[in-house]
């Protein structure tokens, strides 16, 4: 009762004694124990998860006490897996378990914050009587006023403001930007919708309604494997983690399972108990190596060489020395191996050219629809060339023949495609294969068996099957004579033998040979249950697509893709936005306006942060001697500008003119409808009066003006070329240690001697923690955390959909992202009504994959209208031109309602269309209808976050059996095969938000994905391609070994080859002080993080406590010793891009020649100044710069056509070298000094000019 009174009973304390009075028994008060009980007592438990792009998708119990989140714990109520599989749970890791710290942490953004100087300026203008838009315009018109706030970005100076005031300012900035520059100067960046799809949709819906642009993320993060669309016409469809358990042989490379797939890693342990063999490939002794039976310590960035050598072994032993029946059947039916490739004479021999087409034959083999797009095999049954079912020509314009049944397209006869003509050859010719290994020949001539074909134009040409060419390219001796083939694995002089690979990779030839053989042997015995798990470490390189293709080749030779327990398992930033079809219309406002503006972020930032001005990588050095070489002398930037002009990739902004003014001008000049406006635009392009914005990114007309960042940490982690962002985009203090000039050679991009500084008028960050992105923004808006909002979450790793739930109301003044953009939309509508009204604008759209536009440019021939090779024809030789009318004043009313196009135009995904009338009516009843008078009155409401969740699930085939039925019916029509059985058992299922709050639900099989949800097999990619005969969405309809586009051949990537790391010359002008000191030059590796994931946890107090309390760089023991670096010393990594400072972790785990700085260690904790730049220490990306790859720009050509986060340039950063040197403790400068005018004016490092 009273502690004090209890104490007074001192003499009554001993109740009994024992052990000869050595022990006493008391009845002391036990009330203190209540403290521990209270710690775990709670008022309620709510199901939520973490919307972070680890893609774990783990269900968590959130414990709430007294209105506060007290702790979280793993949920263990997932639906069971089938009997022969371990269960998924418990899911969740240390990082997630510590998340609740953020809610009440010092990092939390509690109120709207704004840069103080900007607020003063704005208030002064408003006070002088201007309305918000005029006030914003006045600030932007005055160079000095603008500079006064842009130049202090990143230096603090935030003040608290009211929601009303910041919303008004954001709306004013958007209205002004649309008026003066055009809607596409407003840009939004947010990654990985799957982690919290409604939050993503909030910003993208607002931007899409006002004509702003959304930037991609998957490619920008360099997590996007370009090889996936190249090979399958699909972007990242991968097995669920449980499918690892069905495998019997697994190679793991570049994916650190226990660290970055923590909740799934148990499957890798469990499958070993079942007897599977695991081989690990990693340069360092990474955590996942402990799972393995064999560790191949491979030199970083050389994985393609090792896999090509394994392919050499598999191909030789299972296709040539003996013909494995399963492998041969698989190659014939599901790969392009039997397709016929035309050979082109070059010098003394031949080089490979495009695939043969139906239209090459007299009468087009009876094909009238798209004969240019139907590829050819040699049919063993009829002894003739035929166009089999399933190529892309059958996908569009006709029905019922787009399938992988072995039939002729013309008359549906049974066929057997021939893989090799070696026994029926007309001739053997010498074919040159491009080769890029330093110190070896650049064209390797090998003998190939060929047939002769008479073409429709009367010419005769030589053709060879992809199989025959591929065997030759792997350097396998088939007894046809000629050079560059190996009869022995020990021949180190012939490319792609194991002995050759040992030279390149450092891995023992015997290990490569054995692994290649075992991998194939296992696949042969199990019908494809050999698997490769791969990830970031091999995908973040410039030539990542080749590394991946080398693996896919091995998998296809061995019939693994599409088989449970087999295939590729790519895990890095991958996401499976499972109810994508229901989500996309809401996210991109397709229910009101089509098309939305999407862009590939890598090219966007490459131009707008002026990284192109510093380009040291010469495109000519990448060209193949077997290409046509029409683009010799072009820079990488030139290639990108050409790609946008030809309608392959988007340019954002679209044009160097305001798209609204452009539309007005077209209409004034006689255009009347969309088609004639498009004609006008094409004419303007041709005359040169109009051009894509990327052709002159330093012209203020083309600058991005407003930037929204939400759910992201753009500046703090993902900005490759971080310092260039600070310098050119933001105009802030930056550490770029060079002046631009290397990009001057560009012919298509206009060069200005003076570079642009501070392109952005306004940067808005929406976040719950004040990270580096917030620190550089002008306005920071407080958003709800993952325990404070209602949202949806799905992942690749398991087949369930589950919710984020509002366990507690959003803290302080924060709101959910959906509500934030709703209020911005409301403010915008008020100002837009007065200043903008209703306007028509021109929207340029690249030829999209999965639409008929992917057939725009036949034969992979490149015709550039700018060079006069053809006329600019919208949708054919240049971008598709659309005319969109927007009543800007209705933006809010449209935001809050599901719009009429859902019934007028219906819904679609990946080329399959269906009607949504029924779901639209259901949603009117399920959600409320909009009461607000105006354009959207009576429509299904999207006012509340839960309404949005339910609308997404109602419209998606994965969460509504009726929609699955409609979409599969449409698919069945296309393929001519009945797929009804795939979803039949779940036709009646309909999920609601309340359902998934009760328990995560397993999704329904949908045509969106290539795997199935079943009680018999785990989800795996390519399953329906192989088992349902639905074609891959490629040119041939099969998985591609060969790429026949002209640019692919120009760069020598027709077949997969090995290309070494590129040389960027980053160390050419090191600061003198560094040159004079002992320093290391090492490869800069930025793996996925130990204690953080992309956007959080790294600065979480609990995680910081685990390791060093701030940024760190791992170094090899031997390297460190050479330059006197000891463990925990401060070191600086520096090159011409900038510098970063961290503590050294010296370890024998790391091989010599590389330094590892884990991802997402940003500037906000424990980062001192850099001695080289004089600015705050930098981040992992302060020493990187993004480089773009021309082959990733190809468009308008079957699988090589643009799609948002599907194809495009990728933001690679691993081909980077840095110098590392020690900073003595006494020289560590924390820069804790006041901001003086001199310091403010010194934006660049001392001695570096503004160019």
């Amino acid at each position: 009762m009273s502690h004090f009174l209890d104490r007074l009973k001192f003499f009554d304390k001993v109740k009994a004694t024992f052990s000869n009075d050595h022990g006493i028994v008391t009845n002391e008060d036990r009330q203190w124990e209540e403290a521990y009980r209270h710690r775990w007592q709670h008022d309620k438990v709510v199901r939520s998860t973490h919307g972070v792009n680890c893609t774990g998708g783990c269900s968590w119990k959130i414990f709430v006490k007294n209105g506060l989140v007290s702790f979280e714990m793993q949920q263990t109520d997932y639906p069971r897996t089938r009997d022969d599989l371990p269960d998924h749970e418990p899911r969740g890791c240390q990082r997630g378990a510590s998340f609740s710290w953020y809610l009440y942490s010092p990092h939390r953004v509690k109120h709207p914050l704004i840069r103080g100087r900007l607020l003063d300026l704005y208030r002064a203008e408003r006070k002088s009587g201007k309305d918000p838009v005029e006030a914003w315009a006045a600030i932007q018109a005055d160079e000095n006023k603008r500079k006064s706030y842009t130049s202090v970005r990143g230096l603090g100076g935030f003040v608290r403001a009211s929601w009303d005031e910041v919303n008004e300012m954001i709306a004013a900035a958007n209205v002004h930007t649309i008026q003066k520059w055009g809607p596409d100067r407003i840009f939004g960046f947010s990654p990985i919708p799957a982690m919290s799809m409604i939050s993503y949709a909030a910003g993208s819906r607002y931007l899409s309604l006002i004509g702003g642009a959304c930037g991609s993320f998957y490619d920008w993060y360099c997590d996007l494997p370009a090889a996936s669309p190249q090979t399958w016409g699909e972007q990242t469809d991968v097995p669920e983690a449980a499918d690892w358990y069905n495998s019997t042989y697994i190679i793991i490379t570049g994916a650190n399972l226990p660290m970055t797939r923590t909740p799934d890693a148990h499957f890798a342990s469990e499958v070993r108990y079942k007897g599977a063999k695991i081989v690990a490939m990693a340069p360092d002794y990474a955590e996942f190596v402990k799972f393995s039976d064999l560790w191949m310590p491979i030199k970083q960035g050389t994985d393609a060489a090792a896999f090509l050598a394994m392919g050499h072994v598999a191909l030789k032993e299972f296709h040539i020395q003996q013909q494995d029946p399963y492998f041969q059947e698989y190659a014939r039916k599901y790969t392009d191996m039997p397709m016929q490739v035309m050979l082109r004479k070059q010098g003394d021999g031949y080089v490979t050219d495009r695939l043969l087409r139906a239209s090459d034959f007299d009468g087009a083999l009876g094909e009238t629809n798209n004969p240019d797009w139907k590829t050819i095999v040699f049919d063993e049954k009829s002894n003739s060339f035929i166009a089999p079912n399933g190529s892309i020509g059958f996908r569009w314009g006709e029905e019922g023949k787009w399938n992988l049944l072995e039939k002729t397209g013309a008359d549906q006869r049974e066929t057997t495609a021939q893989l090799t003509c070696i026994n029926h050859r007309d001739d053997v010719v010498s074919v040159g294969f491009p080769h890029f290994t330093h110190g070896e020949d650049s064209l390797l001539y090998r003998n190939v068996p060929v047939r002769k074909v008479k073409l429709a134009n009367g010419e005769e040409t030589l053709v060879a099957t992809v199989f025959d060419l591929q065997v030759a390219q792997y350097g396998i001796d088939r007894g046809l004579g000629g050079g560059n083939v190996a009869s022995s694995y020990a021949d180190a002089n012939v490319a792609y033998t194991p002995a050759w690979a040992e030279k390149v990779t450092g891995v023992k030839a015997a290990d490569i040979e054995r692994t290649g053989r075992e991998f194939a042997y296992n696949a042969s015995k199990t019908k494809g249950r050999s698997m490769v798990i791969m990830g970031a470490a091999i995908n973040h390189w410039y030539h990542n697509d080749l590394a991946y293709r080398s693996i896919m080749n091995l998998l296809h030779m061995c019939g693994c893709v599409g088989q449970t327990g087999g295939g590729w398992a790519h895990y890095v930033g991958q996401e499976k936005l499972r109810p994508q079809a229901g989500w996309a219309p809401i996210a991109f406002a397709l229910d009101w306006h089509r098309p939305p503006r999407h862009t590939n972020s890598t090219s966007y930032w490459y131009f707008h942060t002026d990284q192109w001005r510093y380009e040291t990588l010469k495109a000519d050095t990448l060209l193949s001697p077997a290409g046509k070489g029409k683009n010799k002398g072009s820079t990488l930037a030139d290639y990108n500008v050409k790609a946008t002009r030809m309608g392959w990739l988007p340019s954002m902004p679209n044009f160097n003119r305001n798209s609204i003014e452009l539309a007005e001008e077209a209409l004034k000049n006689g255009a009347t409808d969309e088609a004639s406006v498009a004609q006008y635009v094409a004419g303007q392009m041709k005359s040169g009066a109009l051009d894509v914005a990327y052709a002159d990114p330093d012209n203020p007309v083309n600058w991005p003006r407003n930037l929204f960042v939400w759910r992201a940490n753009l500046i703090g982690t993902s900005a490759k070329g971080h310092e260039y962002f600070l310098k050119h985009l933001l105009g802030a203090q930056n550490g770029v240690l060079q002046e631009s000039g290397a990009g001057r050679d560009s012919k298509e991009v206009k060069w200005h001697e003076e570079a642009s500084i501070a392109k952005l008028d306004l940067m808005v960050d929406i976040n719950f923690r004040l990270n580096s992105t917030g620190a550089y923004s002008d306005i920071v808006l407080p958003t709800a955390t993952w325990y404070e909002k209602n949202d949806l979450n799905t992942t690749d790793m398991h087949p369930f959909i589950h919710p984020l739930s509002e366990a507690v109301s959003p803290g302080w003044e924060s709101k959910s992202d959906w509500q934030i953009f709703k209020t911005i939309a409301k403010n915008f509508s008020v100002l837009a009504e007065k200043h903008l009204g209703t306007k028509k604008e021109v929207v340029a759209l690249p030829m999209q994959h999965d639409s008929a536009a992917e057939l725009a440019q036949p034969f992979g021939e490149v015709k550039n209208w700018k060079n006069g090779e053809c006329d600019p024809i919208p949708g054919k030789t240049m971008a598709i031109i659309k005319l969109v009318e927007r009543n800007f004043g209705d933006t809010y009313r449209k935001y809050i309602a599901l719009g009429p196009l859902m019934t007028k135009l219906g819904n679609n995904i990946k080329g399959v269309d269906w009607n949504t009338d029924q779901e639209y009516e259901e949603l009117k009843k399920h959600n409320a209808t909009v009461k607000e008078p105006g354009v959207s009155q009576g429509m299904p409401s999207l006012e509340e976050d839960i309404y949005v969740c339910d609308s997404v699930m109602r419209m998606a085939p994965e969460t509504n059996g009726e929609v699955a039925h409609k979409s599969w019916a449409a698919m069945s029509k296309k393929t001519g095969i009945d797929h009804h059985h795939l979803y039949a058992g779940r036709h009646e299922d309909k999920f609601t938000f309340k359902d998934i709050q009760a328990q995560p639900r397993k999704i329904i099989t949908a045509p969106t994905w290539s795997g199935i949800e079943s009680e018999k097999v785990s989800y795996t990619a390519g399953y329906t391609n192989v088992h349902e005969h639905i074609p891959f969405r490629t040119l041939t309809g099969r998985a591609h070994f060969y790429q026949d586009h002209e640019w692919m051949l120009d760069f020598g990537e027709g077949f997969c080859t090995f290309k070494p790391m590129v040389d960027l010359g980053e160390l050419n002008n090191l600061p003198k002080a560094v040159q004079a000191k002992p320093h290391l030059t090492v490869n800069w590796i930025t793996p996925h993080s130990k204690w953080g994931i992309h956007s959080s946890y790294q600065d979480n107090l609990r995680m910081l406590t685990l390791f060093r309390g701030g940024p760190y760089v791992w170094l090899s023991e031997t390297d460190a010793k050479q330059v006197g670096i000891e463990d925990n010393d401060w070191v600086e990594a520096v090159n011409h891009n900038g510098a970063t400072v961290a503590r050294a972790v010296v370890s024998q785990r790391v091989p010599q020649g590389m330094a590892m700085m884990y991802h997402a260690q940003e500037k906000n904790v424990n980062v001192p100044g850099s001695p080289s730049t004089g600015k705050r220490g930098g981040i992992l990306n302060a020493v990187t710069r993004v480089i773009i790859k021309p082959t990733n720009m190809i468009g308008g050509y079957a699988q090589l056509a643009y799609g948002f986060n599907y194809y495009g340039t990728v933001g690679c950063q691993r081909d980077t070298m840095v110098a590392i040197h020690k900073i003595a403790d006494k020289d560590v400068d924390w820069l804790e000094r006041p901001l003086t005018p001199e310091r403010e004016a010194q934006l660049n490092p001392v001695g570096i000019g503004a160019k």
Partner: protein
Amino acid sequence: MNLHDFLYGVYPYIALSIFILGSILRFDREQYTWKSDSSQLLSKAGLRLGSNLFHVGIIAVFFGHAVGLLTPHHFFLSLGVSDMTHQMVAIWAGSIFGGLGLLGGAILWHRRMLNKRISVTSRGTDKFILSWLLVTLLLGLSTIPVSLGHAHEGNPGVMIALAEWAQSIVHLRPNPALLENVDTVFKVHLFFGMTVFLVFPFTRLVHVWSAPVGYLGRPYQVVRSKRHFN
């Protein structure tokens, strides 16, 4: 009532009441704050010497005061301790232990104020109470020359007056008049000393109550039973 009467007739009871009631309330209501707030984890520098000197000094001085002031005069005499012996013991013991306490206190004060980690993690009351104790100690030591003067003159009157005043307080028959002719330095020292009691429950000093004396005689095992004892 003049200020003198208030300070030496009323203030002692205010201080003692707050001292006792405050301690009880804090012990009952704020168990988690009942601690010494050791800063040893943050910095060990100077702690071993400073803390030990300070504690030895201050504990000895405390008990010296308690015995010296509260033992009835005739009791001393009956033990054969003459007033002059008493005075000389008080002066010498006071000087030695007061000196130790001062030295230790100075080390601790320096550490608390100037060691950055300690300083920024200190509460206001931590810095205040240490400083206050030091001033009290200094004042106490400043009485020594005066006492030496008295001893020289062979006059124990002031000492006896102080003891009688202290006993008058304890006997609830306050007699501030006893102090009217005492040297000012004693009066100031008294005020500071009484104030230590006043602020005691609001500071880390509460740990004094919980000095772990019981450990000395504790059996090896202390257990509780689920059985109910009355």
